[in-house]
């Protein structure tokens, strides 16, 4: 089975999504799971078909405008996108639900 794909998203897909990705990588390593991580901008995010999208709380209303197939893509909104604690708290149940943890 292919690895689970997690995509970090921000406005330009450059700085803060990348920072979020690096923090998530630490969390993932400590959980000991194999996933693919990448980052991108909002407009192209859904075309990646990721299993999980992690983004900042301020983009919630943006994603509300898109049709997201909830059975395929799970959204995770973060208040502090570089907090290991918050990422671990919110990501762990999703990984369990997806059956990789």
């Amino acid at each position: 089975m292919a690895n689970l794909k997690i995509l970090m998203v921000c406005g330009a897909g450059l700085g803060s999504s990348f920072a979020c990705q690096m923090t998530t990588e630490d969390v993932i390593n400590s959980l000991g799971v194999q996933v693919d991580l990448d980052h991108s901008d909002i407009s192209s995010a859904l075309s990646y078909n990721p299993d999980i999208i992690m983004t900042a709380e301020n983009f919630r209303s943006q994603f509300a405008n898109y049709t997201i197939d909830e059975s395929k893509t799970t959204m995770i909104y973060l208040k502090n996108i570089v907090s290991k604690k918050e990422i671990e708290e919110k990501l762990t149940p999703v990984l369990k639900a997806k059956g990789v943890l």
Partner: protein
Amino acid sequence: MEVVNFIINNILTQAAITIALIAMAGLILQKKPVGNVISGTLKTLLGFQVLSAGSSIIVQALTYFGQIFTEGFGMEGIIPSIESINGQAMNDLGLGSQIALTFLAIFICNILIARFTKWKYIFLTGQAILWMATMCTVFGYFAGLRGFPLILVGGIIGGIFAVAMPAIAQPIIRKITGSNDIALGHFCTIGYMFTAGVSKLVGDPSKSTEDLKLPKGFEFLQDTYLSVMVVMVPMFVITAAFAGPEFCAQFAGSTNYLMHAFLQAIQFVVGVYVLLSGVRLLLGEIVPAFRGIAMKVVPNAIPALDCPVLFPYAPNAVIVGFVSTTIGSVVAMFVLPVFSLPMILPGMLTNFFAGGTAGIFGNATGGRRGAIISGICHGFFITLLPALLVGIFNGLGFINATATDVDTVAAALLYAWLLLPLFKMMGV
């Protein structure tokens, strides 16, 4: 000797190769598997070439815009764009490799300063360092520096900025985030501190922007490329209308001149999109390598991150800051020519990111009234500094160009006003 010449002519002067080798060294230092080393190196190489392609698209669109603007309004209007400075420095001046090596030197100086002083900031916003490296290289080059000294001076100045800017912003970052875990790594910090200061004088911190209810229609502005498009399209089309169909025909050919202007505006956004995709590929391997090394060498390092990291803490303040900064930059556009400074058109990328962050700073020290008033002042301020640079850029052969990001502009002014006369005195 032939081998050395080959290396100099085909490797060290080919910027894409230089930066790919830097990435490769970083990956090998981290003891990554061979597959990762190869893919990471190739991605970096690809990223650099995509970045160059993006900057030449931007330069084309801006050249067209410059011509119709001069015709339409009878004066020079400049869109400040660090991306286009970077493109011209690499393509026309052949400074790509020097920029890549200065980039590396800034990283190294940053680690050294953080290791041996009490300021433990590690600057992780790669594109900001790339723009800083660009400015230091261009201005060092014109101050007469070549080869190793050019890279060393750029590395030291850039490295000092990479530690000093997060350090001066940290008291307010602590207030915004309520912790000391992250710092702000964005070279618009002088503007943010200016905003925070003004806001403190005029504002009332008890009434936060976050209690405001903003219209839903503004929210799409968070999508960077859309918000750039929304501003560029009217700017191009209105300018083309003033320039008239006869003048525009030379560019538009048989296409309607307004439609052509519309498509050129889109083309500009395409350039920004391509360029930033290139930056994303380019930095994808280098920044984690740098982070891994820095965190090992510097105990208790505080990562300095890109400004949107702060946006979830005060999303309303971001919109307030963006709008008020844009108002300030439009005011400055009309006021500066009165004082015989060049007319600087609002640079929307900076207005969004720097304006949004300035809004958060303004809100932190002066609430909503502070954020609005200081945001307008911020817009004026970040237009004034680049305006001071235009004359110098013209002297350097960049026609009608200037940069954004006030810290990199400050670094450039430091070179132009301080180092250049100093080097002249010492006869370098």
